[in-house]
């Protein structure tokens, strides 16, 4: 099979995708009724009027916490499939591999702790 035989399906899918989205956009513009009003632009059409701007500064310590959260997040993602497959027919080194992995994450956590990332100051 040549390059074009193998990949022409991808090309067709790409073209079809673009066409679909484009058609949908154009059709909405042509067919849908459209009314511009100020009240439609506010966050809650019935309720309190919003005050201030929606751009607010977030302190950098949230960012650090988010990174720390990632440690546990990634740990979970890997531990669940590992725990499901861990059984009698899996060699023993798989168990120790996970210990090494958790050990690396604990090192990272210990480093962050020591650097004072967990203190809210």
């Amino acid at each position, binding site marked *: 099979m*040549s390059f074009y035989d193998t990949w022409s399906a991808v090309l067709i899918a790409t073209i079809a995708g673009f066409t679909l989205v484009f058609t949908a956009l154009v059709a909405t513009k042509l067919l849908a009724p459209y009314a511009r009003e100020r009240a439609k632009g506010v966050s809650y059409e019935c309720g309190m009027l919003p005050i201030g701007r929606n751009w607010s500064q977030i302190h950098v310590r949230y960012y650090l916490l988010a990174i720390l959260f990632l440690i546990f997040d990634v740990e979970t993602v890997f531990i669940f499939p590992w725990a499901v497959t861990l059984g009698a027919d899996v060699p023993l080194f798989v168990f120790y591999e996970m210990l090494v992995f958790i050990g690396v994450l604990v*090192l990272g956590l210990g480093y962050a702790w020591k*650097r004072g990332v967990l203190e809210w100051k």
Partner: protein
Amino acid sequence: MSDLDIVGPQLAVLVAAAAVLLVDALIPQHRRIVPFVALAGLALSAAWTLSWVARDDYQTAFEGTLSLDKFSVFFYFLFAGITATVVLASIDWVNRAGRGQGEYYALVLTSCAGLMFLSASRDLITIYVALELSSIPQYILAGWGKDNRSSEAGLKYLLLGAVASSILLYGMALLYGLTGTTMLDGIADAIAADGESHRSLLVLASVLLIAGFGFKMAVVPFQMWVPDVYQGAPTPVAAYLSVGSKAAAFAVVLRIFFEALGEGFLSDDWSTVFAVLAAVSMTVGNVMAVVQTDIKRMLGYSSIAQAGNFMVGLAAISVSGEEFTLGASSVLVFLAAYAFTNLGAFIAVIAISQRIGSDQIKDYAGMWKRSPVLALALAFCLVSLTGIPPTAGFWAKMYIFNAGIRADLAWLVIIGVLNSVISGYYYLSVARQMFLGDAEGADRVRVSPSIGLSLGVATLGVLVFGILPTPLISAAKDAAEIFSRQ
């Protein structure tokens, strides 16, 4: 467990990176030992590589994605040496910068592990992951300084690097689409089988790969970032970028192009691209370097011109028969000689700039009277960059131009020689300033032990390989043997 054994050199470096972080965080009163922990990790890595050489049992690991052969061993030693020298040269600067000591060395080591993986990988995905592993720490390191210029350098390097990565990925995706595999040997087989039928697409893939790696190799027209980043980044980091990431980029280009895309009909096309890029890089780099007044910018443009020299070896693939690997081995010789020479020049600049607080070439006037050792070392490295005996740079240039002549690229070699003359002008005018100019200040420029040691190692390398080039050349020949098609 033999897979782990094969990545031992990288593991040693990565463990050292973790150890450096922990030492810095847990026992801050002993912070002074941090760089030595890093050096110990690099020494362990080199020892591990040496044990592979002693065992003489080369094999692949992880389903063939990583290959331990003489080629990767050559680069393991080169990267361990480069990184150790840069760590030594960084100690003063990092101590003065005052913050994040552990993090600095950890990033350097992580990047070094990435470079090692890059030189050993034989699979497009592994190559990409290794490239990012080495690049991301470099982006952070380029912005490590406190001034705006360093931040600008880091950001510029990051953004342009991201663009280059995406171009590279397009090339890799196209190559995968054409051949149905990401393994380099599989790609070579697929191209040998029926590559001729979609030659133009293969050429397009090659061009995209050249553009992606051209950014890391710093060749024209992908060189815009080089002078700004070298000027803005901390000088030890600039030294690391100029030799480490450049050498790794050439290593992986050699692997991809000689191993996967080396088929005759294809190499005819891309060797022409390399020849043209080489000529343009040499000329643009050298002409731009002549007008520079800042020594770090000048070294930046000079490294662009040197990348043009390396590319002569890549273009010389058309040599056939027993000498097929001549071009590849000449690139390796040049890379090693250039690593010593450029590191020496950068370390001398670190030492001088730290004392006189300026990177302007005019402030180097009379350096001979203020510090004879530094002036001599810098002048010696500049002579080697020009390619004048008895330096390693001379043999490197002669070897690579010889490969060019054998490959019927006489026009390219003539351009190269003319460019050497231009480069002699600006390299030696720095030396002239140092020896004949009048000193601005009378105070002596002192050298700290760590800088002195790293400078000594680098210049000694330039001198030893300048007098006895045979060990280096035979090591490079052995390493390039893996590309042999007999």
